[in-house]
């Protein structure tokens, strides 16, 4: 704790509203899934969506040639993310990132999954295959995740056990049905994820 940080003469009085104080600690949750599965809808149901983009420089070899000649030879790719923040009390902020699913964006996933509280894999029963890659990814990374099946009106209804079998998901990973448009339902998904992360954080067999 640094106490000697305000020698700025125009520093205003400390605002009483703690929301204005800014976050003290931030947690990340990823929302992953195939195109059109409702990632934006889910993030928007529990937070206000704001634009966030990143223009990442990609090199062929992935090595850091960190000078300007290097940049001229690099390709930049723009990744637009759905990003929302839930501000809780006492300076705790939960950030949600809806991440593009295609493999070419996985460098961004690496970035986001490091130190993440966990991930929501949104699935659509009409295109379950589209969730395989995300599930594999989070399993490999050891990122806590839940599978939330967004129940589209024109899709056949399946029960979580059937979906678990179809996706070959470990028994301890929560699988739930949701309606990503509804705040209450989206909140339930997040609650289920945090519960799961908490179990894993308290459990013995898990690293980092």
């Amino acid at each position, binding site marked *: 704790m640094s106490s000697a*940080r305000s020698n700025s003469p125009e520093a205003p009085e400390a605002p009483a509203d703690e929301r204005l104080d800014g976050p003290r600690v931030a947690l990340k949750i990823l929302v992953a899934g195939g195109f059109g599965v409702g990632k934006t809808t889910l993030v928007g149901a529990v937070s206000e969506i704001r634009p966030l983009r990143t223009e990442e420089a990609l090199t062929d070899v992935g090595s850091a040639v960190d000078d300007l000649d290097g940049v001229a030879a690099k390709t930049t790719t723009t990744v637009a993310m759905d990003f929302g923040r839930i501000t809780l009390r006492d300076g705790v902020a939960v950030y949600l990132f809806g991440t593009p699913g295609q493999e070419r964006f996985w460098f961004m996933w690496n970035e986001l999954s490091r130190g993440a509280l966990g991930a929501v894999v949104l699935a659509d029963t009409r295109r379950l295959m589209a969730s395989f890659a995300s599930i594999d990814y989070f399993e490999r990374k050891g990122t806590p995740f839940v599978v939330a099946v967004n129940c589209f009106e024109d899709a056949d209804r399946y029960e979580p056990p059937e979906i678990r079998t179809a996706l070959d998901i470990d028994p301890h990973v929560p699988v739930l049905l949701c309606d990503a448009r509804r705040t209450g339902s989206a909140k339930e998904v997040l609650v289920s994820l945090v519960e799961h992360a908490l179990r894993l954080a308290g459990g013995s067999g898990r690293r980092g």
Partner: protein
Amino acid sequence: MDPGDTPGAPARDHGVPARDHGAPGRERWLDAAAGPIVRPYAVTRGRTRPSGEPLDIVTILVATGRRPAEPGRLARPQRRMLALCRRPYALADLASDLDLPFGVIRVLAGDLLDSGLLDVQRWSAPAAVPSPGADAAAPPPATVPPHLDQNLLRRVLDELRAL
């Protein structure tokens, strides 16, 4: 936005010749019509990676209150970052509010950290309730990162439920 007053101007000195030996006239990056278009990394003088450990997208930054030695050397977005960071501000929020790509904000923030104008707000878990069966070999609670801090996760859980 005022194109004549772009703080990232140094890129102009270096950026153009790099491509000039290609097909003339086809690859001109800058002309009168280009207006305020600045390639995203021009403002970072071409650097795409911060000098130190890459900052996480939700790193919270806060201004130290120190005065920049040479304010004129700061890029305009850096001055705006310093102003915003008088309150703690997460990197993702800075990128969104300043409408700059995250990668750019990260490099600029790295510079401000290096020069002591910004600080990373560290999270230290509040004194953990000592659990009776605590493993003696377990790391001290203060080193637990937020996403593994059970007390914090419990708080998040309670508050999410109550939303």
